[in-house]
């Protein structure tokens, strides 16, 4: 058979998202004929209601962050933004160590995302395309770990971390989440379909080592899925609360921890708390506005085969 260059199939796939049955333009043409009925006015009305419900709390975060506390707590509550946004943001920044917290969050989420992408792609490739003893069992084991809540291990984890000198340090929240079972599963599902065996075999005929194959065949094919996994991982790591709240302290928090402690202080100023909440949410909302389509596609493609 003819050897295909590794670039072509990657471009051949829908480049911006993993193939989801029905959500891609081509697939819809097939489906649309029989199944997909046109949405009526009721459909749109219901979606508008749900949509408003989805963004109202976020909108109101902005409203509350732009008034002084007196006005926020008043009845009737304010419904339009006021003029104190900037000073509240500054107060939140100064009070809650937010500058440090944001840098920490970027470091934590960045490290976790980079490591997840690297290790999960490797493991996903191995599970999808390589033959080795115990593969089925090990894959089941990976999925089974998804059902273990972090609560079950936080007590010894805390003791271990202080034992090895990571107590209160960012390492203690980065290392436990370096490679997630979800990521391994996600990459495996994608590569099962997207990576043709012929490509690997062709590379082997050319004398490529496995590492070489990963570098020049697997990675180009996996790139769209890696992008989606990267965003999902970043969102998760940025928003993680339980373990970071237990492991870190006020001097060295992530943004979520800082936010939790800001509100736990004795007399929290609500509009300043809301300003902090706004700061912590804006970066992710920005990511969502830009990459919403990819994230939606990623969640849906992970779901179908799961």
């Amino acid at each position, binding site marked *: 058979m003819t050897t295909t260059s590794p670039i072509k199939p990657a471009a051949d796939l829908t480049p911006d998202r993993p193939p989801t049955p029905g959500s891609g333009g081509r697939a819809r043409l097939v489906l649309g004929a029989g199944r997909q009925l046109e949405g009526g006015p009721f459909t749109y009305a219901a979606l508008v209601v749900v949509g408003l419900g989805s963004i109202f709390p976020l909108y109101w975060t902005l409203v509350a962050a732009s008034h002084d506390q007196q006005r926020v707590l008043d009845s009737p509550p304010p419904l339009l933004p006021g003029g104190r946004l900037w000073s509240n943001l500054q107060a939140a920044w100064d009070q809650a160590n937010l500058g440090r917290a944001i840098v920490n969050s970027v470091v934590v989420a960045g490290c976790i995302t980079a490591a997840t992408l690297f290790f999960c792609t490797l493991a996903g490739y191995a599970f999808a395309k390589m033959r080795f003893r115990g*593969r089925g069992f090990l894959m089941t084991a990976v999925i089974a770990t998804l059902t273990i809540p972090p609560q079950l291990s936080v007590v010894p984890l805390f003791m271990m971390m202080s*034992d090895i000198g990571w107590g209160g340090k960012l390492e203690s929240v980065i*290392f436990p989440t370096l*490679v997630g079972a979800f990521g391994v599963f996600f990459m495996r599902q994608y590569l099962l379909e997207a990576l043709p065996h012929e490509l690997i075999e062709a590379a082997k005929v050319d004398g490529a080592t496995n590492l070489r194959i990963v570098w020049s065949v697997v990675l180009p094919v996996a790139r769209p899925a890696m992008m989606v996994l990267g965003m999902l991982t970043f969102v998760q790591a940025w928003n993680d609360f339980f373990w970071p709240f237990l492991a870190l302290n006020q001097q060295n928090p992530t943004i979520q921890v800082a936010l939790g402690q800001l*509100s736990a202080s004795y007399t929290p100023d609500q509009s300043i708390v809301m300003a902090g909440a706004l700061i912590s949410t804006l970066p992710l909302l920005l990511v969502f506005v830009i990459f919403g389509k990819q994230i939606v596609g990623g969640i849906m493609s992970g779901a179908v085969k799961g």
Partner: protein
Amino acid sequence: MATTTPTRGAYSPPPGGSGTVPNGPGPRSWRSRLWRFDDLASPYAYIAPFFLVFGAFGLYPLLYTGWIALHRVEMTSLGQSEWVGWDNFSRILQDSEFWTAVANTFVIGVISTVPQLLVALGLAHLLNYRLRASTFWRTLILTPYATSVATAALVFALVFRADGGILNWVLHFAGVGDIDWGNGEWTSKIAISVIVIWRWTGYNALIYLAAMQAVPTDLYEAASIDGASRWQQFRKVTIPSLRPTILFTIVISTIGSMQLFGEPLLLQGGTLGSMGGSEHQYETLSIYLFNYGWKLGHLGPAAAVAWAMLVLLLLIALINLIVGRFVRKSAA
């Protein structure tokens, strides 16, 4: 492009270089041995990081938790431990607050999961129509997913405020008087469930939507030829096809509701949050664990709580299994 269905036998790596281009007799055996080692060891090397990290930070602590649960370990002196046998377990099992937390976790779990999944199902059905700007709607309902627990809980804390909260203000127009959401036995649980529902409904809707789009079209065509109405099609075609997905979301939501922490901690904030309300009315197991371990500083009982959670999870899994089998039998 042809999709390759990955069956195990479909592809075999070149065994020892015999399938590859021969490189001459001399270097071949040396090379082929290297190749064989590469093929043998590489897959394990690629999956090793996951198992190393899980072993070190997942499995080992899980077992270690059992050891701590049988010892006295204090936050103030982490290095010291003293064997106490089953004392920690009897301590929490005799604590009425523990049972309150168990009941609360269960109740909040049910009243947050059931409506959430039902609404998600309906929402997915709507999104499955052909829509203008379908990506926009999907992204819109997913925005709560981008919001952290902390932010969501803090905003809703203001929304649910007793005097002057925006929800009570709206309810005034319906003739409802001020409701003290945070302090009520049921209202506080409802408030926490609302936060959970708000954050996760859109996510679950997308998962259902993906499953709905994978349902073969001919099923619907056959049903409509048989004269099934839209509602009947939904009930007799969509729901049965979605059963594995629904089961999956139920499992995930159940595990999620066992972990509820940020929502109760921040609903009222401060000391009230870390004890789950003035009367522990919304104290979940995670809060109870946090309170014992990190506020009171007794890590032994906290570890015992973790093991109790594990037992509860297994119990729920067992119930799920039995109910699932029963449902399948009665359906057949």
